[in-house]
């Protein structure tokens, strides 16, 4: 019985921490945020040297064959440094879809390229969770028609994995005839999402697609978003505590005012147990199939709530400074806000959790 990160996992997390600290400091993030829909090639190349795009991909396909907990602690670091990188779609959801539903030929063709960091893979699953704006994709014979919103890692993708309204995954190339693409600008400038509109676009189905496979890709995405919020929230607390230790008003550091201390304590008290929930949810994806779906829902919805509280509270502790662009604190605030809504906001996810337990008709 050991509920903890392994030594290797701590080393992995430390190496990602160091990599991002050195290569993606705030001024770089600011530059990247001015070009949301451009992939940060050199940063991604550095991440690829660490094996990050292929971390979940089996070694046979050039990946590292690691597990979801490894991916979660890496994405936690991405959240911590608001890293402007296409991890969620390219390194997690797309390879998982290919591994679960792709043919051998498809896997052989695409997984090594993803693992090497050579290609970006966007993922369209939003409508499998909830349809807005009349979106949704219908599959015909080798073609797709309809619209997909909030496609993850939309920018400069070399390949899209698209879920249709019938639990089928499809491969779509960005230059396919009849495909039109529009960027969606969100509050979070560190990650790109967009829209795909399909008019009889030729697409290659993933032959082993199933409702379960779609659900699993979404579960994994949700756990990663929870981990991202965990890392971003942790950083916001650290920044708030540090700021409160320096800023003086009324002749004292504001961190000596109990009102401020208690805000910080409340943030820590809410976030600290969430860490264990994220760990378990990620672990369950690999090791405890019976718990995986429910725990993905819990991790996603709970971190959304805790994240919102931490994001607004840490901002408040910074006073007017927190509200400005000067400290860049808003990048974390927005990252957490984005994580909350993507792949299902908490109310929606809790309804799913209720369904899973037979608590909702």
């Amino acid at each position, binding site marked *: *019985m*050991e509920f903890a990160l392994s030594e290797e996992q701590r080393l992995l997390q430390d190496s990602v921490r160091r990599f991002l600290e050195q290569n993606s400091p705030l001024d770089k993030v600011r530059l990247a945020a001015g070009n949301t829909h451009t992939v940060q090639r050199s940063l991604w190349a550095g991440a690829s040297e660490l094996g990050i795009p292929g971390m979940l991909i089996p070694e046979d396909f050039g990946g590292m064959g690691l597990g979801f907990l490894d991916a979660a602690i890496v994405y936690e670091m991405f959240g911590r440094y608001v890293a402007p990188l296409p991890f969620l779609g390219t390194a997690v959801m797309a390879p998982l879809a290919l591994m679960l539903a792709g043919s051998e030929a498809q896997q052989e063709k695409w997984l090594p390229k993803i693992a090497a960091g050579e290609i970006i893979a966007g993922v369209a699953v939003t409508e499998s969770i909830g349809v807005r704006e009349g979106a949704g994709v219908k599959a015909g014979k080798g073609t797709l028609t309809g619209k997909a919103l909030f496609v993850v890692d939309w920018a400069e993708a070399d390949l899209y994995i698209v879920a249709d309204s019938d639990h089928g995954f499809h491969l779509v190339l960005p230059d396919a005839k009849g495909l039109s693409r529009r960027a969606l600008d969100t509050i979070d400038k560190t990650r790109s999402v967009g829209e795909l509109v399909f008019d009889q676009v030729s697409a290659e189905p993933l032959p082993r697609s199933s409702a379960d496979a779609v659900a699993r890709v979404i579960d994994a995405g949700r756990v990663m978003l929870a981990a991202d919020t965990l890392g971003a929230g942790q950083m916001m607390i650290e920044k708030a505590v540090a700021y409160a*230790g320096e800023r003086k008003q009324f002749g004292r*550091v504001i961190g000596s005012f*109990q009102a401020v201390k208690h805000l*910080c304590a409340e943030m820590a008290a809410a976030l600290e147990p969430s*860490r*264990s*929930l994220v760990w378990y949810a990620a672990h369950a994806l690999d*090791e405890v199939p019976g718990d995986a779906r429910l725990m993905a829902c819990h991790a996603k919805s709970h971190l959304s709530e805790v994240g919102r509280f931490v994001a607004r509270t840490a901002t408040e502790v910074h006073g007017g400074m927190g509200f400005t662009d000067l400290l860049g604190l808003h990048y974390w605030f927005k990252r957490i806000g984005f994580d909350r809504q993507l792949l299902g906001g908490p109310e929606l996810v809790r309804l799913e959790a209720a369904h899973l337990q037979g608590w909702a008709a």
Partner: protein
Amino acid sequence: MDLAYSPKYEAFREEVRAFLTKYKSQAPKGLGAAGRPSPEACSWQQLLIQHGYAARTIPKDYGGYGAKPDILESRIIAEEFSAARVPSALQNQGISMLVPTLLELGTEEQKKKWVKPTLRGEVVWCQGYSEPGSGSDLASLQTRATVDGDDFVINGQKIWTSTAHEADMIFCLVRTEPDKPKHEGISYLIFSMKTPGIEVRPLTTMTGHAEFNEVFFTDVRVPKTQIVGQRGQGWFVANATLKHERGMLGDPAAMETRFQALVDLMHEETVDGQRAIDNPIFRDRLVRLQAELAAMKFNGLRLLTSASKGEDPGLARLIVKLQSCELTHQISALAIDVMGELGVLYDDSPYLRSHGSWQWGYMFQLGLIIGGGTAQIQKNIISERGLGMPREPKLAK
């Protein structure tokens, strides 16, 4: 991350199960959280000690079972007893607070005399710390003990003393050195509640029950040998106990039991023929609590692992009292809301659900938020010790 137990532990689990199968029928219905255990509860406790399922790691010489501390074994025992719905070892202030303190800081004679009967449920203790003027600021306590020959002579008052009306003994903080700084003038005494000069007056709480008491001391004579630790060291002795008390609170298994009862309730209660579980607002609140509970449960597993490796889990431990007391209270709050008007029924009213246990719990658990270090004091501790924020500036005297 490895949530499986090794074969050695699985074998141990089988032993526990075999014990439970064999002896389950002898178990009393419930042990009660506090107060004097029934004779059945005492014999059950003694059977548990004999087999190593209570007082497991306390040396045999002092009436325990004498096993090497192994946190995973303790966890397995707790899991199996809870799964079998069999009452586990007695938990009271004597066992969870006094015994560890005596073992750490008591004299050989004190250990020999008091540990065994306390463990066996034969001697019941109360904790005499809080005073009318000294709650959160415990170190300001004013109950005086002066030396007269071989005795301390105690005058003063304690308050909120749980089980004082049933207790045989009290472990009590008194001021012996009034001229020293407040933390250095306190001593920790243990004495009989039958000592002349002690008066116990029950205090009725908001639940309507007398769950604790005021205790008055008038010229109470206690032999000097009944001090634990040195004179003036009582604050540090008491902190050893408070450390144990904090560990006592926030038991995820107990919260899970309450949560399951809430789920059952929500499947039974209806308004206009609609079950509460089918009401989207109640259901959303339920799932939200379930996620929080999951987080606390896994936080508990994380603490277990750090404890087994002798690591300090830091924040993960400091937040437990605050978060679990609040969560427990929220579980009761949802149950009350689900029952609506039925949720304010009390006493022996018609239509009362579960003997009013949710109503009682909703009130009692507020006491747990306050007792043993209030939520605000917890936040002070989290921010100062956990986050390294500045301590409160001291007021000029």
